[in-house]
Every structure is written in structure tokens, then in C-alpha cells.
């Protein structure tokens, strides 16, 4: 986090990359790869696919960076590349989903949301962490890839509606309606799991 704060701003890094400074692009990688990885991983539920796509996305960004004119932020630009490439990948992959999940960070045990969800009077009190993670990822995979993208960016990454709309190139109302629908779907899927 400290390393990220000491980096020059995106505009400078992009300009330096356009002038052939590869270390500037490494700095952009350092800054954005965790977020882009998280986006891909949560859309694919597969670590290996996320790894391959991450490399492809940054390769594409590097090849196209001379065409980046700064009309949007670099953050929006690279997220748009990532979302589009991941949507294409997931559509090509079809229904053969094989989950390969990353481990949960041990810090989750201290998280406020986790503590609330596993309190004695909630429906999830008897579910252990691994089971919870598996259920949630299975539920996510039942959403369409467009809905999954919106849920990932809003609920998991905490992006505002306006930013998601810019990345996806859709109106904000579309983002809100997709979120509403996706939450409903997830509620239904998780309820089915709970009854089993």
C-alpha cells in the first residue's frame, strides 16, 4: 500500500510508457494487477484462468497504450479492457466451469461482515468458511456474465455505479437494474443451498 502511494500518478506513468519506459508500465502493473486479478477471478471463479487472462489483458494494454489519449482515466480504460476480454472468455468457455478457488485470507475471521453473518441468530451460523465460499461461488457462476461483472465491481470491489457504467459503456440505470436482478437471483440460489 505504501509502495502504491509512492508511485507517480497514472498520467505520468502512461506518458512515460508511451515514450518507451518499460519500468513505468511495471509500476502500472504493480498498481492495478491486484484489482484486475480480483475482477477476473470473481468473474471466472478459477485461479488459472484468471492468471492467463491477467497476462493477456496487460499485454493488450501495453500494445494499445500508444492509442490511449487520456479521455478517460487509465483505471477506467484498463478495467474496460479487462471486463470485455473476460466476458468474451467466459462466453467462449460456455458451461464447462471448473472452479479453482483461492484460499481465504485468515483475516476474514475478524471481519465485521463475517462476524455478523456467523452470529448465532443468522441462517449461516452452522456453515463453515470453506463451505460458505464454495456456495457463494457456485451461486455467482449461475448468474449471467454481465450480471456477474456488475456484482463483482459493485459488491466485491466497491466501485460506484457511475464508474461501473463508464467501464461497461451502459447507462447507470442499467447497472442498478442488473444489480437488483443479480441480488434477487443470488438470494434464491443461496436459499436453495440452505434447504439442501
Amino acid at each position, binding site marked *: 500500500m505504501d509502495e502504491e502511494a509512492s508511485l507517480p500518478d497514472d498520467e505520468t506513468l502512461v506518458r512515460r510508457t508511451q515514450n518507451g519506459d518499460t519500468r513505468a508500465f511495471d509500476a502500472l502493473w504493480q498498481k492495478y494487477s491486484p484489482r484486475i486479478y480480483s475482477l477476473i477471478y470473481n468473474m471466472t471463479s478459477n485461479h488459472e484462468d484468471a492468471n492467463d487472462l491477467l497476462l493477456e489483458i496487460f499485454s493488450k494494454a501495453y500494445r494499445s497504450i500508444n492509442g490511449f489519449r487520456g479521455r478517460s482515466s487509465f483505471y477506467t480504460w484498463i478495467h474496460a479492457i479487462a471486463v470485455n476480454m473476460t466476458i468474451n472468455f467466459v462466453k467462449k468457455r460456455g458451461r464447462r466451469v471448473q472452479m479453482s478457488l483461492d484460499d481465504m485470507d485468515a483475516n476474514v475471521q475478524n471481519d465485521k461482515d463475517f462476524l455478523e453473518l456467523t452470529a448465532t441468530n443468522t441462517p449461516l451460523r452452522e456453515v463453515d468458511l470453506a463451505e460458505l465460499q464454495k456456495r457463494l*461461488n457456485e451461486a455467482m457462476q449461475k448468474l449471467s456474465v454481465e450480471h456477474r461483472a456488475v456484482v463483482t465491481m459493485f459488491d466485491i470491489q466497491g466501485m460506484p455505479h457511475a464508474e461501473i457504467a463508464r467501464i461497461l459503456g451502459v447507462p447507470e440505470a442499467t447497472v442498478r437494474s442488473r444489480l437488483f436482478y443479480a441480488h434477487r437471483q443470488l438470494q434464491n440460489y443461496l436459499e436453495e443451498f*440452505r434447504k439442501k
Partner: protein
Amino acid sequence: MMLDEQQVQQLLRLKRFEQPPPGYFDQALQEFHRRQRAELLRRSALRIWWERTASGLFSLRVPNYAYGGAFAVFCVLAALVGSGVFNNLPPEPELASSSAVDSIAPGARAVAGRLTLNHKFEWADFERTARLRLAPSIAPSNTSLPRYVLDGRRPVSTEASFNF
């Protein structure tokens, strides 16, 4: 008891804790460098140049004033061509002293000569024909019908009369 929307959102937020192994991003960066080097070796320099140029060109936004400028340039060029500035070239001395009919005659003779077996071929005639510049001339037509002027006091004019 069903999960409400808030609980679903809380559950989703927990997915932030799903993390790749420590050191993953540094290793991935090294892999990225390795792939970039391999790609550079695979692709020709020309292709790399083309990709960079095309990427720059396709994202180029033409400012609105450029259209106005292009139109102005077009107008100036059209005016120059229309005014005949480029037609005022000095006449070639060879052609200036002779009429067009005389200039054509040797070439025509040469072409006709190629069709006969006993003709002595002269390359000079062909070269002269090739240099020939045909200049259009504007003159009153000899085929136009004569106009009769009924009122003898009025001057004869080539302008059409609208007094009937």
C-alpha cells in the same frame, strides 16, 4: 429464514478475502516480461511498427476545425485550377511556329507507313508526335444558322433577341 439483500451483499464482500498465494503478483510480472520478450522475438519489426501506428491512427480524433481547413484548401486549389494559372505554360518552340495539322502530319504518315511493307521507318517522326500537345481552341461554330435582323438600324449581334 431467507437471506435478505443486505446479507447477500455482506456475503459478497467476504469474497475480497479470497486472495492468490503470497508473491503471486511478482511472479506474474516476471512471467509477463518473459512473454513480452518472446512476443518481440516472434513478431517482425515491421509488424510491431504497423500495430503501434494503427493503434495511434485509429484512436486519433480529428478536431472540427480540421474539416474547415481541408475545405478551405480545396476551395483555394479549385480556384487556382479554375483560373487557368497552370495553363499559362510557355509554348514549345517546335509547335509554336506550325499549325496543329502540320504537326500531326509526320506522325500520321509514320503510322500509315507502318502498314506498308516498303516504308522506311523514322523514329524521329514518332518522337515528335509523342511530344505533341493538343491545345483546345474556342471559336464560333461554322455550323450555326445565320440570324436575320429585321430592323436594319439595329446592329448585328450574336446575342439572342428577346424582342418579338
